[in-house]
Each structure stands twice: as structure tokens, then as C-alpha cells.
């Protein structure tokens, strides 16, 4: 930028120099404001983690024999309930769809201790504030004979894996 220092540094009061001064004022203000906005945004970028340290979303839960027919086993650490009926098996989430509490297995299905949501055996809402049924997760039989859950993929409730 070729700025004639000699001319612009003198305090001229001609309309032309006033206009230039006003514009320089505007540009300075705009620059400061923009920098402020940019640093605010970069702060948000900074505090939003790129990597999280949680559990993996895909994991093995053991062989089908570990879940005898007719059983409803809760895997606490994974917030899962593995249901086996005969030769059909499925994995339901035990995280309440209302506000994230862990639902307990009750006689009629599942019940949440925090705000009283109730679900039936298939995870369908039967009462309380829960907005959605409990998700069913994709369950596959890996080549090594172990069951593998993918918590990133929800499937239609009621679709079992046939063994």
C-alpha cells in the first residue's frame, strides 16, 4: 500500500482528508471487530475436542453361547441389554432416551429411575416422558464366532439376528 506519509500525517481539514480519515477509522474498527470475532470463533474451535477419550462404539460382546435362550442380560459398562429368544438375538440400549439415565430391567420391560419413563420388553415407550423407544443396535456374527455390536448403527426395533 503506497501511502504518502507526508501528506496524510499532516492534520488537514479539507473535505478530502476528512473523508480519508473517516474511512481509515472505519477500516480500523472493522479490522478490530473482525479480529475479535475470529478469536472468539477460534476459542470455540479450541474447546471443541477433535478426539474423544470415550469407549469404542464397535466392540465384541462374546460368543452366542454366553447368552442362553430366553435370557435378558444387561451389560452395564456398555449400557446394553442383550435379549435372546430361541435362536434370535438382539442388543438394546439401556440409556434412557429422555435424559440419559440408565434404565433398569423390570418385570414388564425397563424402567427409568430418574424421571419415571417406562418401556416394554421391546423398548417401546409405555409411560413417562421418554420421547423415543430404546434404540436397537446392529448386531453381527464376526468370523471368529463372536457377536459384534455397532452402537453407531441403529436398526428397526424388532429385527433380531438369527443364529
Amino acid at each position, binding site marked *: 500500500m503506497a501511502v504518502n506519509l507526508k501528506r496524510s500525517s499532516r492534520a488537514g481539514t479539507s473535505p478530502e482528508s476528512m473523508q480519508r480519515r473517516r474511512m481509515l477509522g472505519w477500516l480500523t474498527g472493522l479490522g478490530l471487530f473482525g479480529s475479535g470475532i475470529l478469536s472468539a470463533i477460534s476459542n470455540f474451535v479450541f474447546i471443541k475436542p477433535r478426539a474423544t477419550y*470415550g469407549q469404542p462404539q464397535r466392540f465384541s460382546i462374546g460368543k452366542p453361547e454366553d447368552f442362553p435362550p430366553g435370557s435378558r442380560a444387561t451389560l452395564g459398562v456398555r449400557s446394553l441389554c442383550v435379549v435372546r429368544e430361541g435362536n434370535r438375538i438382539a442388543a438394546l440400549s439401556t440409556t434412557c432416551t429422555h435424559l440419559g439415565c*440408565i434404565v433398569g430391567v423390570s418385570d414388564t420391560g425397563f424402567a427409568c429411575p430418574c424421571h419415571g419413563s417406562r418401556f416394554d420388553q421391546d423398548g417401546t415407550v409405555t409411560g413417562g416422558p421418554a420421547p423415543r423407544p430404546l434404540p436397537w443396535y446392529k448386531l453381527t456374527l464376526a468370523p471368529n464366532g463372536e457377536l459384534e455390536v455397532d452402537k453407531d448403527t441403529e436398526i428397526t426395533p424388532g429385527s433380531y439376528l438369527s443364529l
Partner: protein
Amino acid sequence: MSPATEPIPPKSGLLNALKEFPKNVWNSVFRNPIPSNDLEKSATSFTNFFLHIHPVKVHKHSLKPSYTLGLGLISFFLFVILILTGILLMFYYVPSTTQAYDRMLDLRGTVAFGMILRNMHRWSAHGMVAVVFLHLARVFFTGAYKKPREFNWVIGVVLFLLTLFMSFTGYLLPWDQLAFWAITVGTAIAGYAPVVGKDIQFLLMGGTSVGQEALLRFYVLHVAVLPAILSLGIAIHFWRIRKDGGLSRTADADATPALEFTEPASVKSAGPEPRKTYGLQGLVRGPITKAGQVPDNTVFAWPDLLRAELFTFVITLSAILVLSLLFNAPLEEPVNILHPPNPAKAPWYFLGLQEMVSYSAFWGGIGIPTIFVILLFITPYIDRAQTGVGKWFAKERLLANTIFLTFVLANLVFVIIGTFFRGPNWAFVMPW
């Protein structure tokens, strides 16, 4: 020391400097001698950093305990107690999921005064939530948010929300069952906010569930970010009280006709007009030379206001000390991410919210609270009538007070239901 006497030339020499050393140090620190009359006290108030927060004189109405109930001061003193006890607790606390709970046990068992400090911190925190809200209610019921105090009311509402957020971030830190599940639920409520909800939830937790990242984040918010913002907010809040002309009062509190001074015409015409001098304030706001022009309903801040403040501080500190000696701050079982306690209850001041979210997560946790907060913010810009200021439950303010009271009572009902009428699985039970 009349100005007529010859100025004494300062004595030089090291010996003399040493002789006068204590006196010179003292005089350099304290600009004024220990004051013995009102004028000297005023001069000291004016030049002393810690005293200049006070005006030299305050209106008598501002010192009426029945008007303010001292609630603002009590809130501030509780905040001071929280800062001091909080800093001490930081010497022993570690924001780690594997250590935090053990540190709580250490505070109870081995750290000298650890128990009483934790108790004081906990009860002051509960007290501050309650007293800040009561202060807000006092200001509402006396119409004190009206012009020119509209923006100080807005700052006050922000301070109230910050207080709630302080308490919310604080109770994850013990890493016990209440902590874990309250924050799980609380951050999930934030997730219901439209558009940005999920992002806010993720930013707060630093991940997809409450764990080490969330604990560290809440710790930083609780001990650094929020106290800094809150302190700045309190400073502005106090500053504006002065700039808005002190505490609110009725219009007739300023004028007592019997004292009005009327100049006889003969005197008026006798001499030249008094020359007016303007201070900086006068130039900005117009002349403030009011001596002799308005009846004086003020008293000196020193000693009257200082005495009232000292009294409030002693009462507040004593109450917290007695509570902390009598009752221990609860600590539940260490975090068990498999089993929420049944029923899982938030602290009393969030139980109204928890009761409401048990009907609808969005409306109970986001919708209704947001409407209430927006109403609080815009109240002084909607309710423009200048009547009924400075009086508790003024008849002219019946409508506004009724609306406010309805919200407060509704929340109170929800708090009571949540506290006493909710059993396992949040089922309705009778408390007896």
C-alpha cells in the same frame, strides 16, 4: 500551620531520614490522619480504595432494613465466603475421576478443618442461590427495576443465572452419585435446546458422556471462568447502583415540603449570583451542587452504612458457621455409571426443573425456563409506569407482582412435589 508562616525547608541527611522513616512510610500509605469528625471521614472515604465504593452520604431510605432486608449484601458476603473457602479447598482437590472422590474423603477425615471448610462452601452455595433469588424477588416486588435502573436489573438477572451455573458446575466436582447423574441429566436437558443443543452438550462434556473430560471442564468453569465473570458482573452491578442514584426509593422520600427553603426577595437581589463550579460529574450530568437546594435526607456512609454492612456480614458469617458446625455436607456413594440412585434427585433448587422435565424434557427443561428468563430480562422495558417504585407490593403494581408471584409459586409447588412426593422410578408417593 497558617499559610503565613515561612515554609520550613525539609531537613536533609541520612540520620534524619532514618528517624522519620516509620512516619514517612505510614504517611505514604495512609493519606489521611485517623479521622475524628465527619469531614475527615468523608475525605478518607473519598481517597481510600476500599472505602470509595461507598458514597460519602447515603439516603436514609437505603438503610431501612425493612426495605432491602439486606439481601444484596448477604448475597455478596456469601460470595466472598465461597471464594475464600473455595480457594482453600483447591489446595487439596484434584479434578480426576480416579482421585476426586478420595479427596472428598480426605477432606472429611484427614485434612485439618477440611470438614468445616467443605461444609461452609456447600451451605454458602445453597444460601447464595436462595438469597440471590430472594434479592431478585425483593427488587421485583418493590418495583426497583424501573427507570433509570433497567439495565442494572438485567445485570442482576445475569448474575442470578451465573449463580445457578456456578452451583451446577460445582456439584459435579465431588464425583459422587448425585454429581454424576445430576450432570448427566443436566447436560441432556441442554441437548434438547433447538439447533445448538447437541453442540452445547458436546462442548460441556468434552465428549459423548460424562467422564474425565467433563470433570475437567466443569472444574475450569467452576474455579476460573465463572468466578471471573461473576466478579466482573458484581463490580458493574455495584458501580451502577451508585451511578443510578443509589437504591430505589419513593418519589416523596426525596422531598419534604416543610424543609423547603425559599429565599426572601430582598436577599436575592442584594448580592451577585453565586459563582457555580462544576465537577467532572457536573459537566457530564449537569450541576450536582444541591446543598441547600434540596432537603437533606441523607446520613454519612461512615459510620451509618459501614455499621449496617458490618452487622450484616457478622450475621451472615455466623449463620454459615453455625450451619456448618451442625450439619455436614452430604456425600453420596462414589460414581457408579451402571446404576443411577433410585430415585435420582437433583438439589432442592433444581427439583422444580426436574419435576417439570418428568412431563416434557423440552418444555420443562428448555421452553418454560427460557420464557421465564426472557420475561425477567424484558420486564423493565415493558413495565414503563413510574408508579409504585420503592414500596413493597404497591397497589399500582398488582398485575406485575401477580404474574411474577404465579411463576414463583408454581416453581415452589414443583419443588415441593419433587422433594416430598416422588419415590422410586419417580412414581408419585405420599410422604407419610
